[in-house]
Every structure is written in structure tokens, then in C-alpha cells.
């Protein structure tokens, strides 16, 4: 158990604890703010795993954009100070089952895929090199090479999927406008 392990475990506890608070708190805006804490702790986990680039992108996209978008949505619809009633949907058990199933699936995939991997196995290092910090596993260089050389097809497919979702969202909102104008 090294210091790194301890920090990772603590950050994990914070991330999971904040995540639990997101779904149990009775105040809508607090849930979004606990999400900030959870994402921040997750970024800390990435940092401990030397994935600096992923960590800061996590903060930029999830804290800086996704949570802000959530907050905007909440403030636009209803944002009472204090606990709101009717936040429980009554589907607790089903939600718990789905969450446990998803977690089990993800953990299994990760363990099966990366069981033997060690953090400092930088694949581009010559075997006699003691360290090659510029090409550590999580560096932007390594990540860029992996995404745009080895995994470029899944990356592009994902982009197309997101584009399709975007176009779909626009189509849905535009058709709403058109029918209203027809009337």
C-alpha cells in the first residue's frame, strides 16, 4: 500500500460519497453541486493514475460545461431554496438494480481488460530505459497517438454518433416550431 494507493482510495471514497449524495439529497441544486465534487474527485483519481490530460479535460468538460448546463436547466425550470417534495420517483429498487448491474458490468470489463497492466508500462519506451516521462501512459502525446492511430475508427464512429444525436435534437426542436407556426 503506497501513498499513491491511499490517495486514490480516499479520492474514490469522496467521488462515491458525493455521488450518493447526488441521488439522496432533497435539494435539486445541491445535487448538481455534489456532482461537481464527485467529478472533481474523479479528476483527482485520474491525476493519481498519471493521466494528467484526461483529468483536466474531465474538469473542463464535466465540471465546466455539463454541470453548468445542468444548473442552467434547473434554474430555468424550478430552483427553490430548501428541500423540494416529490424528488423520489418510487423506482428505488429498479434504479438500484440497474446501477448495480452497470457497475458489475463495468468492473468486469475493466478487470478483464486491464488486469495485468501496470501504470509505468509505457509501450514506446526502449526496454533498458529507466523512465520516459514524456511518453508516460496518460500523457497527451501518448493519448493522441492511441486515439488517432490505433483507435481512430471507434473514435470517428463515436463522432458520427454524437453528430447524429445533435442533428436529431435540432430536428426535434425545429419540428415543434414548425407545427406551432402552422396552427
Amino acid at each position, binding site marked *: 500500500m503506497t501513498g499513491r494507493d491511499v490517495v486514490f482510495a480516499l479520492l474514490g471514497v469522496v467521488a462515491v460519497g458525493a455521488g450518493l449524495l447526488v441521488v439522496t439529497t432533497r*435539494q435539486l*441544486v*445541491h445535487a448538481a*453541486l455534489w456532482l*461537481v465534487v464527485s467529478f472533481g474527485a474523479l479528476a483527482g483519481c485520474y491525476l493519481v493514475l498519471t493521466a*494528467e*490530460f484526461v483529468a*483536466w*479535460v474531465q*474538469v*473542463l468538460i464535466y*465540471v*465546466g*460545461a455539463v*454541470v*453548468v*448546463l445542468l*444548473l*442552467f436547466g434547473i*434554474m*430555468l425550470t424550478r*430552483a427553490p*431554496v*430548501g428541500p423540494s417534495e416529490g424528488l423520489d420517483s418510487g423506482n428505488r429498487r429498479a434504479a438500484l438494480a440497474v446501477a448495480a448491474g452497470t457497475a458489475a458490468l463495468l468492473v468486469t470489463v475493466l478487470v478483464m481488460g486491464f488486469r495485468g497492466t501496470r501504470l509505468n508500462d509505457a509501450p514506446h519506451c526502449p526496454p533498458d530505459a529507466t523512465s520516459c516521462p514524456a511518453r508516460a501512459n496518460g*500523457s*497527451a502525446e501518448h493519448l493522441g497517438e492511441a486515439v488517432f492511430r490505433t483507435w481512430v475508427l471507434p473514435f470517428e464512429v463515436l463522432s458520427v454518433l454524437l453528430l447524429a444525436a445533435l442533428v436529431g435534437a435540432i430536428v426535434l426542436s425545429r419540428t415543434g416550431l414548425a407545427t406551432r407556426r402552422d396552427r
Partner: protein
Amino acid sequence: MLEVVGRLALVAAAFAVLPLLVGQAEHKVMAHMQGRLGPMYAGAFHGWAQLVADGVKFAQKEDVVPAAADRRIFKLAPAVALVPYLLVLLVIPVGPHGQVALDLGPGVFFALAVMGVGVIGAIMAGWASANKYSLLGGMRVTAQLMSYELPMVFSAASVAMAAGTLSLSGIVEQWRWYWLPWQLVGGAVFFVAGLAELRRPPFDMPVADSEIIFGPYTEYGGLRFALFLLAEYAGIVVLCGLTTVLFLGGWKGPFLDGPLGWLWTLVKVFALAFAVIWFRVSYPRLREDQLQRLAWAWLVPLSLAQLALTGVLKVALG
């Protein structure tokens, strides 16, 4: 160890002094541009101690939290607004050969990500005040952040692409004079988008004092309000510092760009801060729809064009 402590102390000193200098400059520059004198009495010489006096006044005021407010978030918001700018100041290099408190690999992304977190402070303040004007202000802050974050990241990415590195010191090392025309559009987009993210005039719709009082800060007084003001000036320093490092070559200049290069950095930062104040005096406030139009119809396409130009030239020359 001692060196690290020394650097942190220097950053803390810069964080304490530079925003005050910008604030005082704003008092005086704005006054002279409008044909007035500005503060003249505090500290005897041209009112240099005005902000110190303001600080003392703020500290003496009563600490008021509205009865209907969400107390914890209301009290936490000023810290969330201020601390991120301190963190960004840590990674801005002021001179060559490691004159930076913390040389991060993906420094550009760190700076942009943490600056985005600072805005959450204003959103929290807007919501937790339990005041309609504050809530409106908070929503405007949110809308503004969402539209201006994108062009900012694009134009920063363009420089990172040109330099071939994400490290802030690395970018300045790679910088050459011809980057000025090459990255001109990106630099302008970055600066304007940054101003919008800081909610500085002419992008001060969220705090528009003549229509929604002071937006998210309406209910704040005393030290907490002072912290928000400090966050605004610290934000100006950070934005000018980032623009200097990314687009104006940081510590590089026609002469003296050795160990004394940090003087160039300071000169450029203050020149940009002067421009920030100048904008405030020159332009009327943009309306909400004009704000959104500027972001989506001008800044995003311009930054994408800059990104394409950078890529094409990089491939053609490299």
C-alpha cells in the same frame, strides 16, 4: 523545498498585489478617460491608497446573510469564485528557464478548466441568494459561460497546435514573431471570449446594475462582496497573463529577453489590462441576444477558421 515555498510566496504576493494594481488603474484610467480625476485623497498622492481604504471599509461592514438564502452555499460562493484564479496563476510562466511556480504538462487545459470552475461561484451566488434579480443574473452568467467557453478553447487549441505542445512554457519557447499575424484572429477571439467569461463590460449583462441591480452579487455585502470584486480583478490579471503567454510571446521581446524577461511579461499584462479598462469605458453593454449572436455567429466560426489556418500552415511548413 525552500525554492518551492519561495515560488508559492511569490505567487501569493502577485495574487495579492496585481489585482489591486489593476483595480486602482481602473479607478484612475476610467476617471481620466471620462474627464474626471478619480480618487485623490486616500494616501495623499493621487489617491493611491483608495483600494486599501475600501478594503478596510468592507472589513468593517456587517456580515449579512438573507433570511431566505441557502446559507452554506451563499457563504461558500465567494471562495469558489476566487480560488480558481489563484490556482491558474500558479501555472502561468513569467520568465524563461522555469520561472513558473508549477510547470504542468497540459498547462493550457489546466488553465482553461480551472477558469471555468470559477464561474460556478457566480452561479452558486445567484441561486443561493433567493432573490429574483440574483437568479436572473445567475442564469445569464450560465448562458454566457456556455457560449463563450467554446471559442476560447478553440483558439487556445490553435496555439497549442502551432507550438506542438500543451505546456504554457513550451508554447512561449516555440513562439516566433510571425505568430502575431498568424494567430491574430485566435488571439482576438480568446481575449474577447475571456472578457465575456469574466463578465467585464461590454459583456456585463449578468451584473447589469441598471436593470437587475448587481445580478448574482445583489445580496452580498462587506467582505464577501469584496472577495467577488477581487475575483473580478484577479480574473483580469489571469486572462491578460494567459493571453500574453499564448498569443503575445510571454517573456520574449526585441531586447532583454534573458532572465529579465519577466519584465516583458509584466509590461504586456498591464498593456492588456489597460485595454480591458479601455473597453469598459468605450463600449455600451451588449444585449443578451447580441451577446449570443456575437459568440455563435462570429467567435465560433472565426476560431474554427483560425484552427483550420493553423493546421494548414503547420502541415505546409512542417
